[in-house]
């Protein structure tokens, strides 16, 4: 009876260590380069526009190209949205890239993002927009590298809510596009 208990305990302990090892092995394949952090709250009145700030985080030790890479063959970071009919998107404002050189080519400076990246976009509710909360799906397209390798282009999907209603601290006075 006692030896049975010991065998089960040994097997359980080995199973747990196996799971631990398997998680370690799986990590490189599920490599995360960029995570979506947040979007600022947005309430926009019909006929008005409001800015939204999206925060992403580029994991260390990776960098991604800025929206205007220094070389034409490099893939720019871009933000895209799938919009419901009640909301339109205006100008998307990308931050300036940091000019950095990397060990693989110390003589060349590239325009990149690393760490936190904040991208702004203006959302517009047409005059006839029905009030309510709309879930908008976005996608960040990027291509990451580290000091030694580059990784195939990726898309990071995310979602956030836009409330169409009266008032709200983020209301914008510019005329809405319909």
């Amino acid at each position, binding site marked *: 009876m006692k030896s049975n208990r010991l065998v089960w305990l040994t097997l359980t302990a080995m199973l*747990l*260590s196996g799971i631990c090892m398997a998680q370690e092995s799986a990590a490189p394949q599920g490599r995360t380069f960029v995570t979506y952090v947040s979007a600022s709250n947005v309430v926009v009145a019909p006929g008005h526009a409001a800015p939204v700030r999206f925060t992403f985080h580029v994991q*260390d*030790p990776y960098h991604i190209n800025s929206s205007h890479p220094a070389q034409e063959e490099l893939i720019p970071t871009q933000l895209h949205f799938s919009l419901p009919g009640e909301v339109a998107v205006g100008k998307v404002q990308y931050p300036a890239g940091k000019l950095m050189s990397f060990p693989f080519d110390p003589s060349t400076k590239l325009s990149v993002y690393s760490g936190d990246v904040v991208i702004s976009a203006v959302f517009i509710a047409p005059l006839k927009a029905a009030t309510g909360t709309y879930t908008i799906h976005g996608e960040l397209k990027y291509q990451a*590298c*580290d*000091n030694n*390798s*580059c*990784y195939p282009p990726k898309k990071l999907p995310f979602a956030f809510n836009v409330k169409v209603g009266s008032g709200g601290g983020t209301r914008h006075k510019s005329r809405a596009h319909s």
Partner: protein
Amino acid sequence: MNRNVIVVLCVVVGITALLLVGKHGAKAPVSVTVDGNTQSTPAPVQGAGDPAKGSMAPTFTLKSIPDGKPVPLASLRGKAVLLNFWATWCGPCKIEMPWLVDLQKKYGPEGLQIVGVAMDDAEDKEIADFAHKMGVNYLVLKGSEKVGDLYGGIDRLPLTYYIDRSGKVVDETVGLASESVFEDAIKRALEQGKSATPEAK
């Protein structure tokens, strides 16, 4: 009984810890100093993907750039092949290209064929223009996801396989390699599998 339980747990935890430490130690990041700043970078990985050293390199046929002719890898049997997966958007790949040009010049007469497989979504013309701009003097093929899967999925670039004259994988480098790493592996690829070459027979 309690003592036995503690001993078993200690042994299992100890083995797990040793395995984890060994694994991390083998892939310790490399610190590089650039412009006075120390940056950490994952170490170049050797032998991390498929196919394994000593196994036959998976065969494929891909279109050459710019002429569009189908090129079977098997048609290069008898030569040592440096198979370099790259892309126009890959900075480290670009650094390797002039070295590959020099090595093709130096070892081509001894039977080396460098093959650059472009894992790009770009148009053939863009790839051809880029290769031309870089002075590429070796074979460039348009890669595909299917061929990438044969070589372990190509989740990072550059990725280089060294194949001997008999078609066996001699070595592999993941990430930017140095010119001397290329040269050492090329010499081994040229040396190994000589008995399988048509000249040797």
